């Protein structure tokens, strides 16, 4: 079996250099590649284009890379909860492209499935459609949206093996599997890395062929954005 294991985040991101396009998995702060983000902050690479559903919060997730001015452009569907993000956007330091969430996911999927483009009804008749080719199928209009072209995909999984196979847990799955499929180089960090053969092949969510480097992550904070509970009556 081909061994994809690397020693840790620093080695995994060693060839991410200024100006690269990265995909980062996660929804809000759930299922984000915490270790890779910390390593990118430490390395100090700049002018990155980041494709990620959200942009983190001020002091966590992609917010950490915004604080250090490492991000040139964000491609996201929702960028709410981040004051530094807002400041950089309004001052013109940061470029932002907002796209519908399903379009974002499906442009990743298309890249992973080897399809150059998709047709989606999302955004027809809105400013999202400006400058895009529209086609009519069976009486309904669809926008042509291109597959993403990302240099690296950084994803977080629950378990993985040295062959690069991944299993995700609960809703931290979100964008991770489709981004894993879409990166030219995909780096997976996992909470538990095991030897090839220890995971049941029937339970694999992302086959190792899509994963180029995998490492055992550490010190996961797994921060909760909205802690909601109910009383025990």
């Amino acid at each position, binding site marked *: 079996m081909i061994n994809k294991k690397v020693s840790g985040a620093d080695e995994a991101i060693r060839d991410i250099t200024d100006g690269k396009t990265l995909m980062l998995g996660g929804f809000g702060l759930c299922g984000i590649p915490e270790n890779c983000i910390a390593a990118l902050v430490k390395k100090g690479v700049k002018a990155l284009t980041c494709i990620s559903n959200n942009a983190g919060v001020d002091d966590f997730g992609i917010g950490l890379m915004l604080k250090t001015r490492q991000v040139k452009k964000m491609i996201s569907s929702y960028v709410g909860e981040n004051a530094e993000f807002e400041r950089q956007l309004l001052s013109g330091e940061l470029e932002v492209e907002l796209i519908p969430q399903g*379009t974002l996911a499906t442009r990743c999927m298309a890249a992973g499935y080897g399809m150059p483009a998709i047709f989606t009804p*999302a955004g027809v008749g809105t*400013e999202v459609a400006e400058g895009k080719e529209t086609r009519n199928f069976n009486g309904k209009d669809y926008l042509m949206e291109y597959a993403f072209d990302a240099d690296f995909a950084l994803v977080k999984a629950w378990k993985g093996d040295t062959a690069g196979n991944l299993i995700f847990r609960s809703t931290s799955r979100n964008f991770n599997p489709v981004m894993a499929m879409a990166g030219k180089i995909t780096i997976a960090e996992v909470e538990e890395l095991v030897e090839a053969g220890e995971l049941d092949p029937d339970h694999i969510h992302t086959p190792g062929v899509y994963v180029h480097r995998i490492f055992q992550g550490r010190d996961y904070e797994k921060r909760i954005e909205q802690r909601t509970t109910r009383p025990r009556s």
Partner: protein
Amino acid sequence: MLDKNGIAKRIAKEIKDGYYVNLGIGIPTLVANYIPEGINVVLQSENGLLGMGPFPFQGEEDADMINAGKQTITTLPGSSIFDSAMSFGMIRSQKIDLTILGAMEVSENGDIANWKIPGKMVKGMGGAMDLVASAKNIIVAMQHINKAGESKLLPACTLPLTGVNCIRKVVTELAVLDILPEGGFRLIERAPGVSVDFIRQSTAGKLFADADVKEMELN
């Protein structure tokens, strides 16, 4: 006139046994509290969950288990988890029976604006554009008039659009209205204590209303 919970309660009456339902953030989230007893409904959360359960008990929160509003939640017997592409796949292919979402403006031809106010910080459309472009059955939960008394049910939206010609039913603090395929709002029910005249005054778009339109039953 209804408060937010009243709007949610009225919308909940539109939910039928066997429905898969996507609830947006805000008033739509409250709808989950009023789903009628004795019917089976599955709530979809577009971050990748079918079968959303209640909030966890204190101390049982799981950072890996959240809804699209980023709140900690639980699953139910029969729940399933999937990735974001499949989540919007089931939305686009109309497997979800009902979508309930909020709006800033709705027009008499069924256009909706709910994601962007020029000059203000734009947070993004999230999944709203995908949902309104694909869903076969959308109910909008919104305020009929703003704080200045101006109508948000308009001949044409003034804000950047989220989707065109896609909304067929609106529930506000004043009324339940259908949007007719040929254009215009049709008054279906009025909120308790609200007159047809007041609804007429509060609706800038074309309104079709019978004088004897019935009052909502909320219980």
